[in-house]
Each structure stands twice: as structure tokens, then as C-alpha cells.
């Protein structure tokens, strides 16, 4: 009998090979999609390109000259004014260019007193008051500016002489005068239909009776001003009377915005600053105001036409401009030390007088 164990039957290796084949197939498929071995530069994410970069300049490395002025020039309303054909013609008239480049005018702009006055926070704040902004942008005001009579009046030698008389400027600055202005009576009086009428309007009576005006009238400065031959000549000039009676001027003087502006504490404070008073009395400014060149410029048909141009008036009275003038950003800009520094810089005055704000078309 044979007890040796029987040779076990050979097992089939097919399942093993099938399994290996399946694994190999999976491996091949994987490699086909993902690659093998790991590839150089294969980051497996969004790989950033390798680029050398040295340090670059920063904003402080850019040295500009009065860039604040450029911001102003970018404004569409400013551009509308600058590019207005009438305005451009006015700027180009010999009278105007002579006025702008006259030594008197440039000296006036460069006077330390004016610079100091313009730098006064009070004045800047006054200019930035919404009321004044609204007043200056009101259609009545802009129309008034455009009246030929007003231009003629402003350029009358008597008027400019009056404006530049020390007595008058002192009176303008007297607290009593500004107080009278702020009560509205004086402005109302100025709109009386006929100042020379024997039948004085009630407003005029009230004005004359106001303690503030009486106080103002008593100040030596105002008395001197009122009695100056120059002022009386001016007040009697047909041009000024015509201007004062122009409905548009009367409307603007009556406007609540203007009255509110005139009575704004900021404006009053500004008018009382020694700097402004000093500026108004500066010989350079007075000389400039009375310069024949300026007077001729104000009377040029081109300038008057420009001021009356519908486009310009529309621009100045546009709600957008009014809104712009009242925006905190602009008010902030107007009172910013940078703008004040720009406005008083020699560069700005040089720019004003040499055409920086002129049309940009190249030769």
C-alpha cells in the first residue's frame, strides 16, 4: 500500500494573471493621464511664471509740480468754460492778455497779503459754504454777471477808483457793515426800484432805521468812503444805475442763497481778517483793478458774449456744478492746505497769466 501523499493538482494561474493585467491596465491608464515619473516643473496647481523683478519706484519717487491744479483742469465744467468759443476769444483779446500779463495784475496776484488772505481758513470756508456756492451758481447770478451794464459799471474808472480807495475797503470790513449786510436790509434796499425816487420804499426806510446800518454809517471809514468823490461818481454813473436796476441783478441780490451766504459767519470772519483787508488795500491790487487793460478787457464784446453764451450759463448753472460745489469732497479740497498752497504759489499765478487754462489744441 502507498501512503505518499498525492501530488496536489496544479492550481490555475489565470486569475492571477488576469488580476495583474487589470492592475497594469489601471496603472497605464493612470499614467496616461497623470504622467510618470514626476515631471520637472509639474507643480500640480496653477503655477506662477518665474519672473525677475527688482524693486520699483513708489509714489513718493514721482516729483510733480502743483499736481492739484491738474485735478481742477480735469473737471468737465472747467473744460466747458475753457473751451467755450466766446471765452477763448475773450482770453485771446489783446485787452485781456494785456490785463492778465500786466505787471499790476501779476503783482497783485503775487502780493503776500493776497496770498495770505487766500490762505485764510475763514475765506476758504466762506467760499465753500453751500449757500455761496448755490448763489454763485444760480441762473440769476450768472445772468447778472453777463449783463453788459454790469461789465461796463465794473470797469468805470470811478467805480474801480472807489473800490480801491482805502476808506471803502476799510468800510467793507467793518463789523458794523457786515452786520448790516447780514440782516438783509441793505441788500433789499439796493433792489429798490428807484433809489432816487422821492417816495422811498419801505425797505429803504427800514434799512436806514436799522441800528446796524446806523452804526455802520457812523464809522469814520464808511463816512469817508461815502463821501469820496470817486464813489459818488460811481453811484451816479448811468452804467452802474442801469446795472443795479437790471432785473437779473436784483433777482440775484434778493436770492435767499446770497443773503444767507453774505451772512455766513465764515464770510464775515473772512472779511474782517487783517489779511484780506490788507490785500484789498494793497497798491498792487488797486492798481490792477484800475488798469486800463483790465477795464478794456471787461468791456470787450468777446468777453461779454462769452459770459452770455447759453452754454457757459448752462454750465455754470448746471445742477451738477452746484452739487459739485457743495460736495464734501470739493469743500474739503477748497479748504485743503494743498490747494491753498497751490493757489498761492508763484507757479499757479504764472499759469493763470500765461495760458495754462487755455485751449489744449497743439500748433
Amino acid at each position, binding site marked *: 500500500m502507498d501512503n505518499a501523499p498525492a501530488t496536489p493538482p496544479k492550481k490555475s494561474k489565470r486569475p492571477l494573471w488576469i488580476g495583474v493585467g487589470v492592475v497594469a491596465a489601471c496603472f497605464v491608464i493612470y499614467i496616461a493621464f497623470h504622467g510618470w515619473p514626476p*515631471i520637472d516643473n*509639474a507643480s500640480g496647481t*496653477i*503655477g506662477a511664471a518665474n519672473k525677475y523683478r527688482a524693486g*520699483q519706484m513708489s*509714489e513718493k519717487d514721482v516729483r*510733480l*509740480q502743483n499736481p492739484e491744479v491738474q485735478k481742477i483742469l*480735469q473737471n468737465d465744467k472747467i473744460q466747458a468754460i475753457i473751451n467755450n468759443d466766446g471765452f477763448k476769444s475773450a482770453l485771446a483779446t489783446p485787452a485781456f492778455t494785456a490785463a492778465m500779463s500786466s505787471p499790476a495784475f501779476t503783482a497783485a496776484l503775487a502780493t503776500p497779503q493776497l496770498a495770505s488772505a487766500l490762505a485764510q481758513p475763514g475765506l476758504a470756508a466762506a467760499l465753500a459754504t453751500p449757500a455761496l456756492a448755490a448763489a454763485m451758481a444760480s441762473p440769476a447770478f450768472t445772468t447778472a454777471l453777463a449783463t453788459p451794464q454790469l461789465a461796463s459799471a465794473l470797469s468805470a474808472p470811478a467805480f474801480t477808483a472807489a473800490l480801491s480807495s482805502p476808506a471803502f475797503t476799510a468800510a467793507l470790513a467793518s463789523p458794523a457793515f457786515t452786520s448790516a449786510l447780514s440782516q438783509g436790509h441793505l441788500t433789499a434796499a439796493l433792489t429798490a426800484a428807484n433809489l432816487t425816487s422821492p417816495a422811498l420804499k419801505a425797505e429803504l426806510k427800514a434799512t436806514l432805521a436799522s441800528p446796524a446800518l446806523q452804526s455802520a454809517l457812523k464809522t469814520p471809514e464808511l463816512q469817508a468812503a461815502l463821501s469820496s468823490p470817486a464813489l459818488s461818481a460811481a453811484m451816479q454813473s448811468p452804467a452802474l444805475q442801469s446795472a443795479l436796476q437790471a432785473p437779473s441783478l436784483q433777482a440775484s441780490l434778493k436770492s435767499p442763497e446770497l443773503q444767507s451766504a453774505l451772512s455766513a459767519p465764515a464770510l464775515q470772519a473772512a472779511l474782517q481778517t487783517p489779511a484780506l483787508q490788507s490785500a484789498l488795500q494793497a497798491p498792487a491790487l488797486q492798481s490792477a483793478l484800475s488798469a486800463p487793460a483790465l477795464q478794456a478787457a471787461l468791456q470787450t464784446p468777446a468777453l461779454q458774449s462769452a459770459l452770455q453764451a447759453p452754454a457757459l450759463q448752462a454750465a455754470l448753472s448746471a445742477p451738477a456744478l452746484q452739487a459739485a460745489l457743495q460736495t464734501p469732497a470739493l469743500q474739503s479740497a477748497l479748504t485743503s492746505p494743498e490747494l491753498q498752497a497751490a493757489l498761492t504759489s508763484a507757479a499757479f499765478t504764472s499759469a493763470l497769466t500765461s495760458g495754462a487754462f487755455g485751449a*489744449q489744441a497743439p500748433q
Partner: protein
Amino acid sequence: MHYPLRALLLSLLIAALSPSGLYGQLFERETDNLRLVYYSKAHEYLVPHIVGCFENAFRFESRLFDYRPAEKVNVLLQDFGDYASGAANTVPFDFMSIGIAPFSYVYETMPAEERFNLMMMHELVHVMTMDKPSPRDSFFRSMFLGKVAPIPEQPLSMLYAYFTGPRWYAPRWYVESIAVFMETWMAGGLGRALGAYDEMVFRTMVRDSSYIFDVVGLEAEGTKVDFQVGAASYLYGTRFISYLALQHGPGPLLQWFIQSPGCSAGYSAQFEEVYHASLDDEWQRWIGWEKRWQQANLDSLRRYPITPYRNVTRGAMGSVSRSFLDQGANRTYVAVNFPGQTPHIASIDVTTGSVENLHEVRGGALFYVTSLTYDPASRTLFYTADNNHWRDLYSYEVPTGTSRLLMKDVRTGDFAFNRGDRSLWGVRHFNGISTLVRIPYPYNEWNQVLSFDYGKDIFDIDISPDGSQLIGALTHVDGKQFLIRMKTSALLAGDASFDTLYDFVNSTPANFVFSEDGTRLYGSSYYSGVSNIVRYDIAKRAMEWVTNGETGFFRPLPLSRDSLLAYHFTGRGFEPVVIADRTVTDVNPVGYLGQAVVDSFPVLKTWALPPPSAINADSVTTSAGVYSPMGNIRLASVYPIVEGYKVYPGYGLRFNFSDPLFLHRIDLSASYTPNRSVPGDERLHAAFNYNFWEWGLNGAWNGADFYDIFGPTRVSRKGSSLGLNYRNYLTFEEPESLEFSGDLAGYWGLERLPEYQNIAVTFGRFYSFNAAVKYSLLTRSLGAVEEENGIRWELSSLNDEVNGVVYPRVYGSLESGTLLPIDHSSVWLRAAAGYSPGNRAEPFSNFYFGGFGNNWVDHGVIRRYREYYAFPGATLNSIGGTNFGKLLLEWVLPPLRFRRAGGESAYCTWAQLALFSGGIATNMDDPALAQTVGDIGAQLDFRFVFFSALESTLSFGYATAVEKREKMTQEVMVSLKILR
């Protein structure tokens, strides 16, 4: 009638010689090395910074090139265009023109480097490399008392120009390559030699197995047929010298470009001296290397699945604008610009790919074409024209096909339409400042919204569908770029704050647009070195990649929730494709050649300049004030000349004077004809020309002309003349112009008519006054040889006074041409008519016609058969009359371009055939004297380039003319125009 014409002439001369006060002022700021001139005080705010940038670059380059120009470099600041520009020349003076507007960053063809810093670096390299003389050049400059500018009137000047400035005679790729290379490393790597666009162009060529032009073929053909035209010179040149730098280092590169004692005059010869190989051979080696380099990049990109796409159209479209979807019509609107056709707005069917040409874009720009936006409610497109100057805004109504000018010179682009209130928002470039503006309906005024500080620029803006948000790319002066978002209501209230969505560092966040539901943004970025489409989820504040491309994807436009239209870069421009809106997670970066260069040669890192603030402009300023053109006139050069008097040569000298800005240009010439056949009183010749702005004054004594040596047309005349001319534009908005000109002249001691050499005269003196008005609106496609389309007309009055009798003549011409569907082929109809009331027997009363009009050697218009006085086939001046009518029909065939016909020193770039036929009738009121002649002919022109910079044209013409009841006459014309 007797006129005191001498008195009139004298008074006009006197008035003309007093130009001061008639023109605007120019201002200047000078340092030891610079004369900076500007025409507007409003640009003055930039002066300190520009002076700093100039001096900063000058100091470095002067040391590196070991050269300090003998004169100040004159720089003109201008704001003539809405995007930055720079140009430089060194002949006869060192001069640079700098456009102060911000750069266009489209497709990252320009880096976001601070622009004046970059432009000063770049343009000064041109000055240094072209101006620095070898000892030989210095010798000739001393001999000619300056650098000679080649002029067509005196062809010998070409030779003198080569003697005094040989490196000026170099191809564009050579001149620009070193400037781009230097600008990159001086800017610390922020330049085009390390740019993604350049890398993409060559990667695409290799991927598509496109032909890479050789050193001759690039300028002969490549820059004309490639949709990038002249930009191809920059691309090829920069790649080639970056390759040279990688192979051999920056040292030999500088040796090649910098003139030094013993160096070769020509750039090609100098290359051989430095690299010991021919330029041609090395260029071929570069091409082989470039293919291997780009193949490695492509292999790297292909490690991850490349995004599949479906082509919408059958071919690429050249440069493309932003595009918009008209869902109702299943069409997309895009502006395109490719060689052979004028730029236009196209309408593409997204499904079928059919393309319809909607409307021409006048003044289309390279790369971005126009600023296009769309109002889907009214189906109105808004686009800009005159894109290469001051942009105008137009509307185009798709339903009616009507285009309307909305605002002229609005200088605004990057438009986005606000569906909330129908307003347009855009970016205005003015005085170098970027301003976000809003143009409310009905689009007749713009309003400032936000002006950015100098150095910051916003572009590629879009507005959300509900109108509440605005996004855009914001770049800073340090080159960093961000994707930002602002609220439109806040902006209108004066609030300039913004939300930074993504910091792209130095890569451009390009063409981001809102999805239709406003929750996502789609744009493109070269973050990995390849421009891929990216998607930004606004709520999650997360950026994801949508494509892994081989060349580049741009300008995405959501088509549906799961697909986008995009533009895929190819060698023929951008092709619209549709891709799936999916996320890809794996994108390999590519390698930059520029990076390899700086890694191999870190010395380039030492080239990075310190900031320009290191220079105090006030400290280096030597003077500031008003620029006086008259006060700056000086001698530019003197050189010997040869002139022809009748058929005999004369020899003499020419003196050239100018101010550095070329406002005053004066030349004086004097020569002597030794031939004894010329009467003694005619042997001496003298002439002068003076030009100032629109005015010109000229005079001659026995006037001679170089080209009279060859004939058959001759302009030299016995006698003396004095003339005053005035030319000015009543309109100048390229390509449209309306010009007025007036000429007043007096002639004494004549024997032939000034205008007609074969017409003898019996009087010794006469005067003429001519005035003309000329209108032109002619356009050409990219790569064109000449204008191909448009209209031109002229009305002229010719008045001659002889012995107290005035002989007036008037004529007009009208030409109209249209581009055919065949690229660069056009058909023209040219008509002319004239009338004179004078006595037919008097020569002055007649018009004369005949001949092609070209001289054997010439410098006038090549296709002179188009002029009203020409009539090919008939003898010169053989047809005459006191009235005439003329018609010419012309077909200009497409040019045949030669990829390589010649060598580096001389090659032919193209040949073009024009066929024409016409007729003329004269003395139509007198049958006995009437002439009616017809002709038919052809002219074949070959354009050659000599010494890389001198373009000459060799023309062959044949025509036959036949008059009623007369024999046929024939004419063969051969003419070489020496300079363009």
C-alpha cells in the same frame, strides 16, 4: 491791368518774416544734457519728474555706452494722442518726442512700468546707439560741420548721411531690439524682454509650424503681412538679441551696438567682427534654438490637459476689440483689424461662424482696434474712431445700420454701458491724467467722476448688469496691478474708495467682465506665463482658472451658464472660439527667455536704475523759460552737391540750418556749371528755401536740379525767381484733411515757361499767384503699399501776369477709389477738368498734357500718370488747350511681396502692377482745334530697400495713345526714384 506786384511781394515778404507773436509760445527747461520743450503750461506739472527720469537714465547710459552727446538732447512733450508714444532721431540733431498719455496695456504688449521712466530709458538708448560716433564718423561730422540728413532733393546726401551716422542705416528690428533689451533691465525686469506677449508670439509660431522670417524677410515681408505689422520688428529683434545675450552674454551685445575705435561702420559687418559669424547664419541658429525652447514650453504645458475649443469662424481675425453678444440674433459684435481690409465692426454668427462687415472704424488701432460697447435694449453699439489721435465717440444702430457721431475729440475709451441708466462710463486721457467719466444719455456731454493721481491708471472697466458696480484694472506707479470694484452710486457721490478683489502683482488683470447674473467675473491673466481665462467668484472672493491654453485665450464673454466665447491667439491674430466654463486645477508655468538670460547673467540686475527722485530737478536745471525757435537756429550741416542745369552738371555746396525742433528750416545752395556750352551768365546757380510753420519763402538764380542731369523732365530754368507759399489745414483729423495753399511767385529773365519746359516765351518777366483747396479722405489697410480707399478732390486757381495782362486758369479734380474684396487691390476713377478764358494763341492761357512725367532718376510721386497734367503715351506737352476734360480708370493689383529677394544691403520688398486707361478732350468749344485722345497703359513698380533705411522705387511704364484721325504714339518709361 497793371499791378504793383513788386510792392505787394515785398510787403508780404516783410509780414511773413515777422512771425513772432503770431504763434503760441513754447516753453523749455534745460539741464546740461537736456532741452525739454512743451507747448502747454498745463503739462508743466510733469516737468520735474521727466527731468528726473531723463537725467537718471542719461547718467547710467552715458557710463555704459561711454558716450556723452555733443549737444543737448531735445525732448518735445506732446499730448497729440490718447495713448503714450515715443520716438527718437539723431539726424541732424538729437531729438525725442514723448506723448504724455498713459500706456495701452492691451494683451500686455506694454509693461506697466511708470511710463516716463520707461520712455526715457528706451528713447535714450536710440540716441546713444545711433549717435555715438566712431573716430571715422567724427571726422566726417567735422568735415560736414554736423550730421547729414538724407534728403530726396540731393541724393548724394545719402552717402554723406552714412559717413556721419552709419548706424542710422539699420533695420527697425536692430534699432528697437537694444532699446527694449535695455529698458527691461534698467527697469529691474519690468519690460518687454521679459514679457509674456513676446513669449506667446513665438510659442504660437512653433506650435503652428509657422514660418519664422529670416533677417531679410522680416522687414521685406514680415512687417507688412503679419497682423502686428511694424510691431513684429520689436518682437523679432528683442528675441534675437535676448538669445544672443543668453548664448554669449551682454558684453558682446554691447560691443555690437556701441561704436568704438576700429569698429565697422555697418551693423552687419560689426556683428561679424564681434560674433565671428554672419548675421544671417546666427539668425538661423536662433530660429533653431527658438523652436527647441518653445517646444519644451509646449511639452510642459501639455503635461496637463489642454483646454479644447471650438472655432467659431473659419480663420483668425487679426486684432480684435472687446466683443458683445446679441442673444436674440445669436450674433456677437466685435471690431477687427487685419491686413488687406480696413478696420471695421463685424457681426459673427456664433453658430455658423458667418461674418458680416457692419461698419468701417476710421482710425482703427493696432491690437485693440476701437473701444466698443453695447446697449442690448436698443441694439446700439458705441465705438471710438480716430483711435490713434484724439478719440471720437460714435454710435451704430444695428437694426438700421446707421452710424452717428456723438462727441468729437472726447479722448475717452475703455467704455462700459450701464444698463441701469443707459449711461456710458469710460476712461478719459487728458494732460497725462486718467479720469473715470460718465456720459449720460443722449451722449452729448461727459462728466468727470474720478480723476486719478498721476501714475495710477484704470482700464478695462465693466459695469454690472444692474448698474450698481464697476470693476476695472488699476495700475500703480510701481507696476503693480489690481482688479478692483467700486460702487457707481458712491462714485457719483464723490466717494473714490474701492475694494481690491485680487492682487495680480505685475500681471495685467485683462478684460474682466460680469456674468449675466452679476455673481462672477471672467477675465484673463498671464499669471502662469500663458494668458488663460479666469473666473472670479465675487461672493467667495476666489479666483479659479478656466483654461489651460498653449498659445493664449483672451477677452472672455459668457455665452451661457456653461460656455464662454473667447479669443484664441494664432499667428494670424485672434480667432473667436467657444470653450466650456469649467474649472481647471493644473496649469504649468512656462519659462521666459528673459528669465533665462538674467539667471545666466545676473550682472543685468545691476543695470536696474535707482528711482528718478534721486535726481533733484531744480539742482540740475540750468535755465527755464520760453523756447525761442528763432534764437535756436543753427547750422546743421554743409556738404557738396551736384546739380543739373538743362543737361549739364554743376558742382557746389548746400548749407542747412534749423532749430532743434525743425520749426525754422533754411537751406542755401550754390553751384557752378563749368561746361562752356552754357552761356556765361547762366553758369552760376543759387537757391534758398525757408520754412516756418505754414509759411515758406524760396528763391532761385538760374535754378538747377539734381534730377535734370537725367531728364527727360527738366525744371532748371534760366532767370531768377522769388516765391512765397502758405499751407494750412482747415481740417486735420487723420485720415481726413482739408488743406488750403497759396503760392505767390515772380520770375525774371525767363526763356521757358516755369511749368512747361518745351514752351518758349518771348517776355522776360512774369508773376503768378496760385491758390488751391484740397480735400482728402483716404484710408489704407494694414500692410498696404498706398491708400486704397476713399475720396480726394482739389480745386485750383492758377493766375499768371505777363506784361500787365492776367491769364487766369482754373481746374479741379475728383478721385474716388474702393478696396476690392481682393486684399490690397483697389479700383479708382480719376476725373479732372479745367478752363481758361484767355486767348488760345497765348501759351499762358493753355493747359498742356502729355507723358508719364517721371524722370529717369526722380524724387517726385511714383505714379505720376495720375496727375491731371499727365497723359501717358503722348509726348510731353503735346496736348494743349484752354479747356479740358479728362477721365482715368485705374485698377491697382495686389502687391507681390518677396520674402527674400536680395541680401541685407539691398533687397526688393514688393512689386505692384497698375493698369489704366483714360481719355482727354481739349478745346471742346472749337472743333477745329479740339483734341480728343485716348490712352491705355500700365505701370509696374518695384520697391527696393538699400542699406536698411533707404527705400527706392524702380518703375517701368508703357502706354499707347491715339488721337482721332492721328497715328498711335507709344511711350516707354523707366524711372528710379531714389528716396521715398
